């Protein structure tokens, strides 16, 4: 039996079999610093997005500035993409350590070594899980049984927790590695890339990956972003995330007898689209900003929600439940917090970029408010109800 184990062990490579001097702590620490920064920004902007969906009492998020979610979520997806080349180079630089054998014998050494390996496995698993599922989610493919939003949030805490634990374990080594010069003065002859070349390559790859995808958030880079999930096109020059057909909203949206219901306690008012169009109209330029990282500015015309609330004798600063005619998919209703309802830029929009709202953008009417995640900008609205 011992002979068999020894024979297998002999065939598994050892760290010294990996000869590239560019691997090792000096590369790992520097790439790790950049990767840790990306992961940190990605975590904080992701947490912010979570708060935008479910604003906690201690952090009321208001409608100012209108572009805030656009920036935070664009940065979230961009730093996630930037992290992909960095994590691959980081793992490459430490890969030989996967094959190290325990130096000491005994149960304690096995347990300590096992725990260290388990913590690294958890870190690698959680970070790769976040990057892979995030990248798949933005192309709207969901090949899993878990809820993406809830699990992406939970594993984010595991990833950052494992990262901090890893840093705590490796801090002395990281300090030594970062204080050591990138290259040795008398570097031994090697026909592979130098550490500097690998670091430069990792940074360039990260920047290039962002440049080639970020145009869905940064308008002037749209042409350069040949791998962007969205090219910015769609009906009326604005991308669509869910069509009327996919949401099962066509029948309700095209019903000629459509009326919008406004309700405040016992007081209820019904308005046809023609009556809505006869009310004072306001025009604002506001972005649609999606959790998937894309965003685009558009010119919206419609009735201020505050003006509609006045028709049912409600304070403009009321919490409003918005319900959609959609029959399929999540977010068929949303809650408009009082700060948003009172903002004169929060519209029940009837027009987009000077034309009647396209059915895929929410015809006959939709909510558009400043600084809100796209899924909460409810389309095909059938009722607004004051809840408090």
């Amino acid at each position: 039996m011992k002979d068999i184990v020894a024979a297998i062990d002999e065939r598994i490579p050892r760290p010294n079999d990996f000869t590239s001097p560019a691997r090792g702590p000096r590369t790992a620490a520097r790439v790790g610093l950049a990767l840790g920064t990306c992961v940190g920004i990605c975590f904080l902007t992701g947490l912010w997005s979570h708060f935008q969906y479910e604003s906690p009492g201690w952090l009321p998020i208001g409608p100012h500035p209108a572009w805030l979610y656009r920036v935070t979520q664009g940065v979230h997806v961009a730093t996630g993409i930037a992290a992909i080349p960095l994590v691959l180079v980081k793992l490459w630089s430490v890969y030989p350590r996967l094959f190290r054998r325990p130096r000491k014998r005994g149960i304690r050494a096995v347990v300590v070594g096992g725990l260290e390996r388990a913590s690294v496995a958890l870190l690698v698993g959680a970070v790769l899980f976040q990057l892979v599922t995030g990248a798949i989610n933005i192309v709207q493919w969901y090949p899993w049984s878990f809820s993406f939003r809830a699990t992406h949030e939970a594993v984010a805490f595991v990833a950052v927790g494992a990262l901090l634990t890893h840093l705590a374990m490796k801090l002395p080594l990281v300090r030594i590695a970062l204080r050591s010069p990138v290259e040795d003065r008398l570097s031994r002859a090697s026909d592979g890339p130098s550490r500097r070349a690998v670091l430069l390559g990792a940074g360039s790859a990260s920047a290039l990956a962002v440049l080639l995808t970020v145009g869905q958030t940064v308008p002037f880079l749209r042409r350069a972003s040949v791998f962007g999930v969205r090219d910015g096109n769609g009906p009326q020059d604005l991308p669509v995330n869910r069509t009327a057909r996919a949401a099962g909203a066509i029948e309700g949206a095209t019903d000629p007898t459509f009326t919008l219901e406004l309700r405040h306690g016992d007081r209820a008012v019904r308005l046809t689209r023609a009556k809505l169009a006869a009310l004072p109209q306001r025009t604002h330029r506001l972005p649609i900003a999606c959790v998937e990282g894309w965003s685009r500015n558009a010119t919206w015309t419609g009735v201020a929600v505050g003006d509609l609330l006045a028709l049912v004798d409600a304070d403009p600063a009321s919490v409003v439940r918005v319900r959609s005619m959609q029959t399929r998919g999540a977010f068929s209703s949303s809650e408009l917090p009082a700060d948003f309802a009172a903002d004169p830029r929060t519209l029940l929009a009837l027009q987009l970029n000077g034309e009647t709202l396209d059915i895929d953008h929410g015809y006959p009417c939709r909510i558009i408010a400043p600084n809100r995640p796209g899924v909460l900008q409810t389309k095909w609205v059938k009722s607004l109800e004051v809840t408090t």
Partner: protein
Amino acid sequence: MKAARIALGALGVAGIVWGAWLVSDDGFDKLQSTALWLVGVVLLHDAVLAPVVVVIGVLAARTVPRDHRAVAAVAFLLWGTVTLAVANVLSGVGGKPGMDSLLHRPYVGAWLALTAAMVAVAVVSAAMMKGRHRETGA
């Protein structure tokens, strides 16, 4: 530094516990799917991707002239990691029928152009380095 390490470690463990607690209400199906993806991505890297890169390195060491190996390695790094960073749009998965807003670009053509550009830059860089070596007599 010891105090900083203990604080970092404690904060880290708290993060892991909090994350685990957040999914603790999930049913068996969801947890199984989460575990499958957590383990799957590690195996995909450690048992497939990294060994493939090692094999490519061994083959390159046998076929690429010594002077050009560093340039070839950096070009491969750039090409490979950028390709994986955009694999989501290249893979052909995702999107929905009737959705013109999503995944509507010629991604494979763009990737071929990127590949050609990287090969061209690598060849030119290798030629320039060779010329410089000759001038300096290195």
